[in-house]
């Protein structure tokens, strides 16, 4: 990062004329042109099926755009070699809308996964993971496996896994759909803290309550395009 060009460095994510279509269907997203400055915090809203998850998938490199160019941490992802992508992905934390926890690993091991993949020591795992689980209210479920957790508990494990590595970019897709408002606010506070430490955050959500209570800019997706809210 240190020697990167200043302009590139300023934008963690940059979309240039990006479009997405699935198969031979219509373009779900069209001519997306925006940038997320480093250290920013955005809400991503829009009706169900507008393409919020698709947009996030583009950023965390789960999907290629059918048109256009995406810069992630200043790197043009359309020309990046395959072996460069894991390192980019490790700098992004993702809360998947459907959690995607590994059923055969305990809560602790699920949350520890990004640390272990990044080569962290067991000592670090033991030091950071229980603390974070405590914060999200899962101290009692450290050894539980996902199938035995409640919906809201799974969601919190997914959030813990996304933030444990202090990613440079945090993408959260509907992270509060299964928890009540008090827990939701607590989780938002967690994101806020991370953001203050420098993480760029994007939260896709339907929870108007949440969006209105926090004073952050909003990207509104409608008919495949972004309208700044």
């Amino acid at each position, binding site marked *: 990062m240190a020697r990167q060009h200043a302009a590139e460095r300023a934008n963690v994510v940059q979309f240039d004329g990006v479009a997405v279509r699935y198969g031979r269907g219509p373009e779900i997203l069209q001519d997306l042109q925006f940038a997320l400055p480093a250290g920013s915090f955005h809400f991503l809203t829009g009706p169900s099926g507008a393409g919020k998850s698709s947009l996030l998938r583009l950023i965390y*490199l789960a999907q*290629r755009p059918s048109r256009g160019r995406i810069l992630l941490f200043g790197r043009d992802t359309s020309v990046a070699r395959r072996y460069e992508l894991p390192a980019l*992905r*490790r700098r992004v934390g993702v809360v998947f809308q459907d959690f995607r926890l590994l059923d*055969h690993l305990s809560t602790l*091991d699920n949350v520890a*996964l990004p640390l*272990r*993949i990044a080569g962290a020591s067991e000592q670090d795992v033991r030091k950071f993971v229980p603390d974070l689980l405590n914060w999200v209210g899962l101290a009692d479920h450290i050894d539980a496996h996902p199938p035995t957790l409640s919906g809201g508990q799974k969601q919190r494990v997914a959030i813990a896994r996304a933030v444990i590595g202090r990613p440079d970019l945090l993408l959260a897709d509907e992270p509060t759909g299964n928890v009540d408002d008090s827990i939701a606010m607590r989780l938002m506070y967690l994101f806020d803290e991370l953001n203050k430490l420098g993480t760029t955050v994007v939260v896709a959500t339907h929870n108007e309550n949440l969006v209105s209570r926090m004073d952050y800019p909003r990207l509104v997706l409608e008919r495949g395009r972004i309208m700044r809210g």
Partner: protein
Amino acid sequence: MIGGRSDLPLSDDSTGAYLPWLVAPMVFLSAVALAGVFILNTLIGSWDRDVAGTLTVEIAAAPGEAAESAERTRGRVEQAIGILENTPGIARARALSQEQLVTLLAPWLGSSDLLKELPLPALLDVTLEGNGGVNLVELAAKLAKSVPGASLDDHRVWLNRLIYLSRAIEWLAIAVVVLIGAVTSATVYFATGTAMAVHREVIEVLHLIGAADGYIAGQFASRAVFLGFKGGLIGLCLTLPVIFGIAVGTDRLEGGFLSDLSLPLGGWIAVLTLPLIAALLAGLTARAAVYRTLAKML
């Protein structure tokens, strides 16, 4: 490849658990077939040595009065020697002298002086070339057809016949080994591939979290190596009693005739290598399957 931390939920799931039980019987079949081939080969080798060396051809005395008979018998002998010496694999054919004949017949007909006056059959002493590659069955048929009254040493012809049959069976057994090997490979391949299909989501999550392809493939490969090796060992444990059983069982059945039915060293090595091959195959397949799954992802 074995050991190391496993971050993947591969330890106790039902998918992984069945892999050894698919590999075990296949390794068992392969090992039994392989052992069979080695045993058969040794057996045939020992028979081959019996057939090598010399051989006797008997030519009955031609009918008719003594002098006439002797004349005609001599003609047949010439004819037989001609055929024999033109057969590849035969070094030399030589008729026994009258004295040698009498000496040979004495145990049967008593050592009477009368023998010398009989129209005796002729005996040819045939020397085979070192490699023992003569098809005695064909030769016997040819002689019998061309030379009236000529016959090849029965014992030898039968042994030769047995050897040819055994060779056919040996080739069949080799075909079975190859076949079972192929089926084992296919089984391991598909079983491992299925495990990958089941774990597709796990692979995807690891991929999205930033694990490198080699890391993910390595996790699955080492797991598959372990499971394949476990299955191979189980298969091998099932094989040993069968190999000993064959040796003991056939030994008792044929009393001496098949007495050296034990597995040669090369056979043991080949059989003991099978679990390693199974493990390697499982590992490589898992690796390839994971890479194939990952290649479909960005």
